[in-house]
């Protein structure tokens, strides 16, 4: 199973690109699942698909999922609450449900919930050849994606500290001090066990994200701000060890006749295009013109796919 993630500034065409990329792969005979992790979904809209359920079959071998973010947060907190209840058994007076309710508004919980959905979806859809994730705008995307990496380094530090604690306890015990009923070995320490469990969960995600089978596609418009965001995303993703395969420059204005009012716009575009070729050298860069009609529905998305054909090929080659 391979994973493709589309990242870029709001409104540049991530969803359109994800849906069309999926279609192109499906038309080449692969089974494809496109997943929207954006709290503001429009994957169904882009495909002109009316039914509103979370999982929809558009064509044979082409399914989409729109993750209900509120539902995901709830599911995530339910899991957490269950886990906590089982460990805080002796504290039945503690009204954990109240606390969990409040947690749903805590900073960072949405990212955690989305990351945990990401994990659940790739675990439950192992039979698909491609899973394409349509992400929310850059900032939130990068926060979600870097979560397991940040979490992992915390856990590693906590483990080191815990190990130092157990070492001291063992030393005291060895020189005959009475340390009481506390764990002195890593194997008997429940804290170490829990740290290891959490580390294992992070490792799974870190491994998946940095695997050769996972690639990010940057989507941008030939304008200064989307370009700056794409550069930032490229730096961040590369520093995490995630492979960025290519970029889609969408909504490129190609005018038959020059229009004076658009002169400076076109100049900015050309400046950005040459900057893009410099910054993303070595990656597959594809351009999609600004289309007269919004590319919505299967047929329009197939036409859109023609523009990104060399990107599809390069994904298939790698």
């Amino acid at each position, binding site marked *: 199973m391979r994973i493709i993630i589309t990242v870029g500034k709001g409104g540049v065409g991530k969803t359109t690109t994800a849906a069309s990329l999926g279609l192109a792969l499906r038309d080449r005979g692969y089974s494809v699942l496109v997943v929207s992790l954006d709290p503001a979904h429009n994957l169904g809209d882009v495909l002109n698909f009316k039914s509103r359920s979370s999982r929809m079959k558009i064509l044979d071998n082409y399914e989409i999922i729109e993750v209900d973010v509120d539902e995901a947060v709830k599911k995530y907190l339910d899991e*957490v609450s269950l*886990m*906590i209840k089982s*460990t*805080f058994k002796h*504290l039945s007076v503690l009204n954990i449900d109240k606390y969990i309710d409040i*947690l749903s508004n*805590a900073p*960072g*919980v949405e990212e*955690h919930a989305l990351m945990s959905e990401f994990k659940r979806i790739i675990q439950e859809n192992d039979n698909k050849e491609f899973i394409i994730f349509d992400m929310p705008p850059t900032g939130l995307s990068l926060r979600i994606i870097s979560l397991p990496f940040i*979490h992992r380094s*915390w*856990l590693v*530090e*906590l483990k080191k*500290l*815990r190990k*130092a*604690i157990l070492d*001291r*306890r063992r*030393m*005291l015990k060895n*020189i005959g*001090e009475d340390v009481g009923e*506390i764990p002195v070995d890593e194997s008997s320490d*429940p*804290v170490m066990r*829990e*740290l290891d469990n*959490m580390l294992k969960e992070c490792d799974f995600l870190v491994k998946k994200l940095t695997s050769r089978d996972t690639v990010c596609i940057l989507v941008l418009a030939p304008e200064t701000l989307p370009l700056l965001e794409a550069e930032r995303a490229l730096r961040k993703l590369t520093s995490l060890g995630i492979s960025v395969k290519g970029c889609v420059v969408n909504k490129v204005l190609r005018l038959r006749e020059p229009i004076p009012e658009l002169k400076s716009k076109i100049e900015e575009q050309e400046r950005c295009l040459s900057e893009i070729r410099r910054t993303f050298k070595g990656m597959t860069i594809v351009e999609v013109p600004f289309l007269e009609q919004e590319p919505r529905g299967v047929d329009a998305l197939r036409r859109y796919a023609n523009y990104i054909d060399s990107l599809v090929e390069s994904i298939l080659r790698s």
Partner: protein
Amino acid sequence: MRLRDIVKKMFSGISETFKERSAELIKLELRELENAFTLLVISPLIGLPGPSTITSLRLLPYIERELSQSLNVSRRLDDMLAEMLGYLDIT
């Protein structure tokens, strides 16, 4: 008493005090490490940056003893300073 015995006795006395002394230092170190660990674990719950809230909640049940120890320490922070200075023979 033969000189050898005297020397032996003297040394065993010294090593006893050394042992006591180092045990006290290890205990002090252990408590500091436990406090640091506890603080890191609960930091997201008290609004400090740290590992996620969820990490905290998952570890919390197992660090009850350390947690109450840390709380005690912070309650008598002044005492603790005196205690540490005592260990280091500064006063």
